[in-house]
């Protein structure tokens, strides 16, 4: 129930941002449209999660957003250094994610993709593996350990 309400609030908020208005009529239209989208989406969703797990996942959102912002800033600094000099040793690194849900895989991809110092090259959902290009691939095990730590501290709680 909490998940449904949050989805409706998020979609209504997006609608109000698009129309740039908070008039009662626009809020009502937004709520109706959000209810329709959520109702249509529920048909395609698998087993729903409990209220407790939804709250637990929501509690992890600040760490996910804040941690990703930190990664974007540090990643940007590394890319700036490499743009102005030469990259130390760019290369591809295989990153095991383990067996995860499709939403977790998508979050891995967006989290790594928005950070400028990593580019997701290929995705192997079957074997739970991402192929990532990094600017400093001299220590692939270090890259894997760093990304696994980032997953544990930022993402695991929200998208396990």
């Amino acid at each position: 129930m909490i998940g449904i309400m949050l989805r409706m609030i998020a979609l209504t908020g997006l609608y109000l941002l698009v129309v740039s208005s908070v008039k009662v009529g626009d809020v009502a239209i937004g709520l109706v449209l959000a209810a329709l989208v959520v109702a249509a989406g529920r048909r395609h969703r698998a087993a729903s999660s409990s209220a407790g797990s939804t709250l637990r996942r929501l509690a992890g959102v600040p760490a996910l957003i804040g941690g990703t912002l930190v990664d974007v800033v540090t990643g940007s600094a590394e890319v700036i250094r490499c743009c102005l000099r030469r990259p130390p040793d760019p290369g591809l690194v295989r990153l095991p994610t383990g067996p995860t849900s499709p939403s977790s895989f998508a979050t891995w991809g967006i989290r790594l993709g928005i950070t400028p110092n990593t580019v997701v090259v290929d995705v192997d959902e079957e074997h739970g593996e991402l192929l990532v290009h990094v600017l400093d691939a001299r220590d692939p095990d270090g890259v894997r350990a760093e990304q696994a730590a980032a997953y544990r501290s930022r993402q695991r709680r929200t998208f396990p």
Partner: protein
Amino acid sequence: MMSVVLDVAGGVLLVVGLLLMTIALVGVLRMPGTYSQLHAQGLAAGPGVICVLASSIATENAATISYAAIGIVFTVLTSPVASHAIARAARRRGDETDPR
């Protein structure tokens, strides 16, 4: 007072965004290979665009700021996908290096 703070913040964000885009352009021209160039373009398409859009706070116009906020959300969602599509195409074409 608030207006001055927003003006300064907007100006700083605009300068930072344009600086990031300029550095990204230098990177695209200097970096070797498609994958490395994608890192540079990611700097412009991600943090660069976000900073420029966020500088809209200086307008103090709710409609402009909300459109910029939507732009930031969609940039965060679509920029990684675009980079991934180009990188995947480069790999299928047979570009460089074995995975480590």
